[in-house]
């Protein structure tokens, strides 16, 4: 049912508009945390992202299992112990560019934006607000942002022994290269 809704949502985007919506299925979200022993780093290049330039609305959806670590064991722990990706397979962000007026989508260039919205991880939703850039390029729009999240905010429990080794927060990087949906 949820998936039907999602499909309807995206189909709606595909059919209902006139070049106002941009999309990617190859978006990037990565996170990074430094520990004295080693760096914790994972990449996900299978993020679905939609941007509506008429309203500034942004949606990202990612599968937790698509986060890829260099070490197989770390990936297994991430999925099984921390994220419980079988129980909570998806993560979602729904938000909005709050200063949409300062972006000229008809002119190539890089614009600073602020994005506010709801980030849902493990069925826990928190409001986040972050700075980023919108880059208008020929044939598309790129969106970039870097922000920090605290695992505990999403009820991700990291055992004390391990917890002390982490930075308190994880640095999250988002890079989207959108293309207009109408041209598809």
């Amino acid at each position, binding site marked *: 049912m949820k*998936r039907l809704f*999602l*499909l309807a949502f*995206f*189909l709606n985007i*595909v059919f209902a508009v006139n070049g106002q919506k941009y999309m990617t*299925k*190859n978006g*990037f979200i*990565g996170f990074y945390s430094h520990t004295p022993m080693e760096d914790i780093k994972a*990449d996900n*290049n*299978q993020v*679905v992202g939609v941007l509506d330039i008429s309203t500034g609305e942004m949606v990202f*959806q*990612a*599968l937790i*299992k*698509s986060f*890829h670590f*260099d*070490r*197989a*064991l770390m*990936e297994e722990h991430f999925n099984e112990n921390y994220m419980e990706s*079988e129980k909570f*397979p*998806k993560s979602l962000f729904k938000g909005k560019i709050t200063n949409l007026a300062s972006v000229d989508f008809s002119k190539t260039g890089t614009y600073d934006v602020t994005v506010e919205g709801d980030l849902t991880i493990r069925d826990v939703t928190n409001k986040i607000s972050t700075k980023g850039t919108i880059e208008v390029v020929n044939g598309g729009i790129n969106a970039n942002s870097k922000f920090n999240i605290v695992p505990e905010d999403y009820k991700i429990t990291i055992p004390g022994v391990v917890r002390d080794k982490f930075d308190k927060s994880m640095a999250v990087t988002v*890079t989207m*290269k959108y293309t207009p949906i109408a041209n598809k």
Partner: protein
Amino acid sequence: MKLYVKIALFVVLFIAVSGILAALILYNEKHPDMAKAKPDFVVTATVLQKEFEDNEAAASARYINKILEVSGTIVTITPTDSISTNISLKTGSDFSSVICTFPAITDPSKFKTGDEIALRGECSGFLMDVLLNNCATVMNRK
């Protein structure tokens, strides 16, 4: 030192060293090499996508975390933000494909849109498309 103390010490040392070794090996373990891995399922992109579209729960239970050998036609080739490359395969749906992330392609020029390809990868699940990770080609027919 008595002989049994020596033996006991040796046993303790042996266990400790092999424990550390085992931990190190486990810790440094890489992902399985898909070019050599034995697939759990052999399926076409069209069939795979349809199974997820018709019944995501059943298809998820069947395929997620499994090694799939998938064949199909290349629709798009997208270099990603890191060193990996995403290749999407044609399915029966216009909106949904099978997106396969290759960790590092040494020679991206060997792939062309429209090529028939067979690849192996680990199934992560379904968003709008079926997602495969850690992919490697089985063969690349022209």
